[in-house]
């Protein structure tokens, strides 16, 4: 008997551009007490699915059936759904800061759930909330009852959210990307807490995430979604060991965690389809490595295998274990012997202290960088890793000349940045370029791509008119964009393409150093791999030098020769990539490494057999 049984769920959301088919004909069943994982990239419909079930999407049109506790939730009056929410089904969301009301104390917000669903005295409610807060690991819970959300750290806020979701001891907990907004080390704690709580209360959990490594480590059953469809479904162990659907296999292969040193990642080409048009064909076919003629001609059948995995695919035997043509391992980074290469940037004891406080009030000092020594050599990629607030982006801004250091020296190509006059400083701007994190914020939405990429030429008077246009076209070609799209606005490009535009702009003046500030952390895994490969390819071809900033160790490991680990404004460890992974010295590095969840290697030993009923359901 399943706790939740979903059959043929379809969710359509009307928008200005047309109807978005967010979820199409999705079915699954969850055993009581299981941890059910829903995996998918952005736009796969994984969040919409659960919100639709709970009636949190008033404008959506929902069909199909969702059986929970003997009732069909679809078509249930709002009032009855409301009574289910919070009481029988708890929810936690991605960003705990914005999900908590800023004006009410956390205790009051949790107690509100109790007062809504049962008759209980104030004192009794308070006692139960304090007890629950203690259980989710809020130290000194009784005294923190009256604190406000902004007085907690990110991880603690998520614990508060978990306490709120579990206070009524619901039978089902839906966790929608509960760790995505948190630092790696905190992520591990929160996942462990959810797992612990479900064992303690016997709660069934739906965990929605884009992080396959996370799912592989905790989930019992997994459903992989793509463009609103359920691509693959089955026990986590079987599914991750040998994915039956080419999409799942592609996702696992494109994850930088699944990498062998020196090799390029194997990204899924192309980009997700628009959800506006309904086509009677496989939605993944345009990007599929194993595409067949029938894929584009008709909707794929449901393949049910004897190891309980199911795939929506034309391939009768599931995805291949290995991709058809393994790209031959390209030569390892051009400059492995970095010690002998000339330094591009030398930072000596760089310090940065902000002074906070208005011009009337007393001043407070906030030390962001506490003495950083770092040298980047020509032709290498140096990784800078650390959690949010450790000062890694600030350091990048100092090197880029966007923020002056308050102590120490930064020399670029042998010249001290502080000693430059205005003209020289401007000249030096050519030598350091930035690639930013946010593919939406880093391009001016009101300007055409051609002028964005041509900006460096305009500002430094390098080329004008047709010559500039020609150079821009060359750059666009270099980063894999269609030069014909010269006249388009950034909004007409996808996230990955926008990052390519940003890279083209950074390349324009042929800089000595390119600082990549979290260049792929806003992208989906499959797109991430495309951009990482591009960066590596460009380095190989043009001999570029990168300072690569990221919070994600596996990404850094993939692209960097050396890695510097930052904590609290200091570099705590600096070593060659493989050395750092094989033999971390600093305790913080070890914590970071231990916290990262990597998806399992696809061993593919198990051979599965197709059960020959196309429309069966286990």
């Amino acid at each position, binding site marked *: 008997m399943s706790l939740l049984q979903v059959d043929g769920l379809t969710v359509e959301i*009307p*928008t*200005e551009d047309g109807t978005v088919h967010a979820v199409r004909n999705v079915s699954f069943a969850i055993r009581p007490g299981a941890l059910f994982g829903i995996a998918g990239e952005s736009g796969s419909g994984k969040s919409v699915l659960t919100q639709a079930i709970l009636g949190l999407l008033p*404008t959506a049109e929902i069909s199909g059936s969702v059986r929970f506790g003997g009732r069909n939730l679809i078509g249930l009056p709002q009032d009855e759904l409301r009574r289910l929410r919070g009481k029988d089904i708890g929810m936690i969301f991605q960003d705990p800061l914005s999900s908590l009301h800023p004006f009410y104390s956390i205790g009051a917000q949790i107690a509100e759930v109790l007062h809504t669903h049962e008759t209980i005295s104030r004192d009794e409610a308070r006692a139960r909330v304090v007890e629950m807060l203690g259980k989710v690991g809020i130290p000194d819970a009784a005294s923190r009852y009256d604190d406000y959300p902004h007085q907690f750290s990110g991880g603690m806020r998520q614990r508060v959210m978990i306490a709120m979701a579990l206070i009524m001891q619901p039978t089902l907990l839906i966790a929608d990307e509960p760790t995505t907004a948190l630092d790696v080390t905190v992520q591990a704690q929160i996942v462990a807490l959810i797992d612990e709580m479900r064992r303690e209360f016997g709660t069934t959990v739906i965990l929605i995430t884009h992080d396959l490594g996370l799912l592989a480590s905790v989930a019992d059953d997994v459903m992989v979604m793509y463009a609103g469809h359920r691509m693959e479904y089955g026990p986590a162990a079987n599914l991750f060991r040998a994915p039956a659907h080419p999409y799942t296999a592609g996702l696992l292969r494109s994850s930088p965690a699944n990498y062998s040193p020196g090799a390029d990642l194997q*990204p899924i*080409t*192309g*980009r*997700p*389809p*628009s959800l506006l048009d309904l086509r009677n064909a496989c939605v993944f*076919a*345009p*990007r599929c490595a194993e595409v067949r003629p029938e894929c*584009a001609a008709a909707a794929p059948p449901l393949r049910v295998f004897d190891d309980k995995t199911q795939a929506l695919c034309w391939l009768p035997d599931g995805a291949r274990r290995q991709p058809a043509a393994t*790209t031959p391992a390209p030569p390892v980074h051009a400059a492995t012997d970095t010690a002998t290469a000339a330094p591009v940037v030398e930072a000596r004891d760089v310090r940065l202290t902000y002074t906070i406080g208005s*011009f009337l009030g007393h001043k407070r000092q906030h030390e962001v960088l506490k003495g950083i020594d770092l040298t980047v050599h020509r032709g290498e990629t140096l990784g800078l890793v650390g959690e949010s607030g450790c000062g890694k982006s600030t350091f990048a801004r100092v090197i*880029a*000349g*966007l923020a002056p250091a308050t102590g120490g020296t930064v020399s670029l190509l042998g010249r001290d940045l502080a000693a430059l006059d205005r003209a020289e*400083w*401007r000249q030096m*701007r*050519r030598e*350091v*370029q*930035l690639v*930013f*994190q*946010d593919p939406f*914020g*880093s*391009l*001016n*939405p*009101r*300007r055409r791509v051609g002028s*964005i990429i041509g*900006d*460096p030429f305009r*500002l*430094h008077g390098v080329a004008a008119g047709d010559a500039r246009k020609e150079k821009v076209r060359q750059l666009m070609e270099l*980063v*894999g*964009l*269609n030069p014909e799209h010269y006249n*388009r*606005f950034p909004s*007409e490009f*996808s996230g*990955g*393409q926008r990052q390519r535009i*940003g890279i083209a*702009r950074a390349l324009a003046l042929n800089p000595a150093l390119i600082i990549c500030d979290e260049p792929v952390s806003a992208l989906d895994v499959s797109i991430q791999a*495309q951009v990482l*490969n*591009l960066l590596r*390819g460009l380095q190989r*071809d043009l001999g570029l030098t990168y300072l690569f900033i990221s919070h994600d160790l596996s990404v850094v490991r993939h692209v960097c020769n050396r890695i510097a680990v930052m904590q609290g404004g200091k570099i705590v460890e600096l070593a060659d990539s493989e050395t750092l992974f094989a033999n971390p010295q600093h305790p913080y590095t070890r914590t970071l490494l231990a916290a990262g969840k990597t998806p399992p290697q696809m061993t593919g030993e198990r051979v599965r057999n197709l059960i020959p009923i196309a429309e069966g359901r286990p």
Partner: protein
Amino acid sequence: MTETAAPMDGGEGVVVQRGSLDLTMRRLAHDRAALVALAVIVLVVAMAIFAPVFASLTDHSPITQFRDTGLSPMGIPVGPNAEFWLGADQLGRDVLVRLAYGARVSLLVGVLAACCASAIAVIVGTTAGFFGGWVDLALSRLIDLVMSVPFLLCALALVSVMGPSLMLSVSVIVFFSWAAMARVIRGQVISLSRQEFVQASRSLGAGPLSIMVVDILPNLTVPIIVYTTMMIPSAIVFEATLSFLGMGIVPPTPSWGGMLADASSNSLYLVAWWMVFFPGTALLMTTLAFNIFGDSLRDALDPKSIRTARRLKRDRKGAAS
């Protein structure tokens, strides 16, 4: 790098992208309220332009007093009739002709004041938001100061000293209108300055002026257009209020506020309703039209707005039934 050379469009057909201007026009064209409002605005503009035509048609100049035909023997103005289509006022002047000439004043003051005020607001707001630090502090305090002034009282004081005139009215309206918009622009500029594309320009060595003009200003077009449009009706009302209180346009030059003041003095309008009805309606319709148009413009320029949801719902219902 093999896969990077492949076109990134995936397997999709090429989506024809419409320009933003085109999209805006389309949305406006689908908005019935906006079209009606626009029609009213065009009508008022036409009335202002062709005011002399009204004068020659009726053979009444806006300031000539027709005491024998426009007033009853008791000195009461005559109502709408064949000669005075919209009636006459307390001095026997033609309400219709004065209404047409009054439109000139209202539009002139409204558009001129709104444009000047928004120009000041953009300059002050952009400077404050972009440079930050003490520049921002000083300009923000200036904005606070202007917003802390009881404006109508100060306007009265000013007019009582300098004597009413058209230019003074415009200046007073501009002076007390720019601050609110400047505050909005400043906020927008601050959030834009934090965007990575501004940092990108800065890291390329772009100067402050280049960043302001090339990177920031184009992103402010929507709030500037919307706020300027919305300021026109408030400026028109402001002018009418000044004239109503006898502090605006100098009589006998016709203005809607002044006509209403004439009607109001000695409660004349209680016996001559046309003296308040026509200028009042003209004033109301004009401001209403500008307000509706401004609202629609904002919705059309900012597709995330709510009204689109309504239109969708309507369409969906239509498709279902």
